[in-house]
C-alpha cells in the first residue's frame, strides 16, 4: 500500500503524457490516413512509398531519425514535437491501410447514385464513402489506437517521461521492479479498456 501511495502519483502524471501523446498521434493518423488511403487506392507512388516506409521501418528507428538525425539537416525539433509527429505519421500509414480496406466494403452502386445526383468527388468521399467505411472499420481502428497507446512507450528514447519510462525509474530507485511494472501494466490496461469503451460508446 505504501508503495502504491508513493508510486501512483508520479506514474499517473507520466500516464498523462502517454495519453496526450497517443491522442495526438491517433488523431493525426486518422486525419492523414484518409488522403493516403485515397492515394494508395489510386496506386499513387507517393502514397505507396509512404506506407512502405512507415510500416517497414521500426517506430523506434523513426523516432531516433526524427530527433537525432534531422538536426544534422538543420531541423531541430523539440522532443514532444518529434514524438507526437513521428507517432502520428507512423499511425497514418496503418490507418491508411485500414481505411482502404473500409473503402473496399462500400458498395459501388451507392457511389454511382451519389455521382448521378451531382455530388462532387470530395462530397462523395466525406459524406458517403468515409462514413460507411468507418462503420466497417471501427474494430480495426480501435485495435490500431490501442497499439499506438502501447507503442507510445517508445517515445522515452527522445527523453519524454511517459508511463513506461516512469515505471522503470521507480523500479530502479525503489529496487522493487515487480510492483512497479505490475502497476504500470494495470494503468495501461485501464487506459485501453477506457479507450475501447469510449470508441464503442461513440458507436452506439
Amino acid at each position, binding site marked *: 500500500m505504501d508503495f502504491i501511495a508513493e508510486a501512483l502519483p508520479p506514474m499517473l502524471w507520466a500516464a498523462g503524457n502517454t495519453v496526450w501523446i497517443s491522442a495526438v498521434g491517433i488523431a493525426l493518423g486518422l486525419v492523414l490516413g484518409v488522403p493516403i488511403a485515397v492515394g494508395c487506392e489510386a496506386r499513387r507512388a507517393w502514397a505507396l512509398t509512404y506506407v512502405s516506409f512507415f510500416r517497414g521501418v521500426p517506430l523506434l528507428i523513426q523516432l531516433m531519425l526524427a530527433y537525432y538525425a534531422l538536426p544534422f539537416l538543420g531541423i531541430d525539433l523539440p522532443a514532444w514535437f518529434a514524438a507526437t509527429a513521428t507517432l502520428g505519421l507512423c499511425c497514418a500509414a496503418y490507418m491508411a491501410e485500414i481505411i482502404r480496406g473500409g473503402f473496399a466494403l462500400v458498395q459501388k452502386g*451507392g457511389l*454511382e*447514385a451519389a455521382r*448521378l445526383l451531382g455530388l462532387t468527388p470530395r*462530397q462523395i468521399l466525406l459524406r458517403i464513402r468515409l462514413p460507411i467505411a468507418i462503420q466497417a472499420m471501427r474494430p480495426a481502428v480501435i485495435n490500431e489506437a490501442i497499439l499506438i497507446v502501447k507503442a507510445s512507450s517508445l517515445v522515452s528514447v527522445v527523453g519524454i517521461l511517459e508511463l513506461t519510462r516512469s515505471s522503470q525509474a521507480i523500479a530502479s530507485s525503489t529496487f522493487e521492479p515487480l510492483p512497479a511494472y505490475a502497476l504500470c501494466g494495470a494503468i495501461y490496461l485501464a487506459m485501453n479498456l477506457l479507450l475501447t469503451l469510449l470508441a464503442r460508446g461513440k458507436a452506439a
Partner: protein
Amino acid sequence: MNPVLQVRALERRVGDVEILRRISLDVMPGEAIGVIGPSGSGKSSLLRCIAGLDPISGGEVLVEGKSARPGDGAIGMVFQQFNLWPHLTARDNVALALKLVRGMAAKDADAKAEAALAKVGLGALGGRKPAALSGGQQQRVAIARTLAMEPRVLLFDEPTAALDPELTTEVLDVIRALAASGVTMLVVSHEMGFVASLSTRVVFLDHGVVVQAAPPAEVFGGGGEPRVKTFLKTYLDRVAWTKDA
C-alpha cells in the same frame, strides 16, 4: 414538340465485344419507354450509357438538345439494388443531394424530402435507416431520392428484379403513377405485363441492336418481329407454366 432525350448512334465496346451497336432513340416529353430483351442484350448498358455511368465508344446522348453528363441533374436513375446510403435515414438519403448539390437550407431540404417520400407512400418512415425498411420500401426511397432532384428523364434499371412478387407491386404502382403524371422515363424490366400497360413505346434489344421499337399493342399483340415473338413466347410459356403449377 422537341424530344427530351435524343440517343444518336450510341455505341459501346469493351475490347472486341460490341455491347451496344449504333442505337438511336428519340424520347418525347411524357413518354414512358419500356426496354425489353433477353439477358445480356444490352438493356442495362443502354441505361448506364445514357446516364453517363459507362463510357460510350461512339455517338452521343442529348437532353433537351444539350450533351448530358453525369451529375448535371438532367438524368435520374433508379437501380436494381436500390443503392441507398446505409448510414443515413430515408429522409437524409433524399435530402442530402438537395442540400449539397442544390444548396437548399437544411429545413427546406428536409421538407422537400418528406414531400417526396409522401409521394411514394412513405411519409411516416422518413426517420428509418434502409436496414429497417423492406426491399420495396427501400426502392421507393430510392425513387423519392431521384425524384426530389427533378430530373428531365428518369431511368429505371430493373427496379423490381431484387424484390419478391409481393413487394414488386408496390414499386410498380409508384412507377405507374409517375408515368401517369407525365414523368418522362425509360424502364428496363422483365415484368412484361407491367411494360405492356405502362409504356407508350416498347424497345426490344438483342445483341446490342434495337430489333423493334413500336407501341406495346404492336409488340405484344402478335405484330412483333420474329425474334421478338420467340422471346415473348418463351416468356408466356413460363407464365402459363406458373399458372398451371
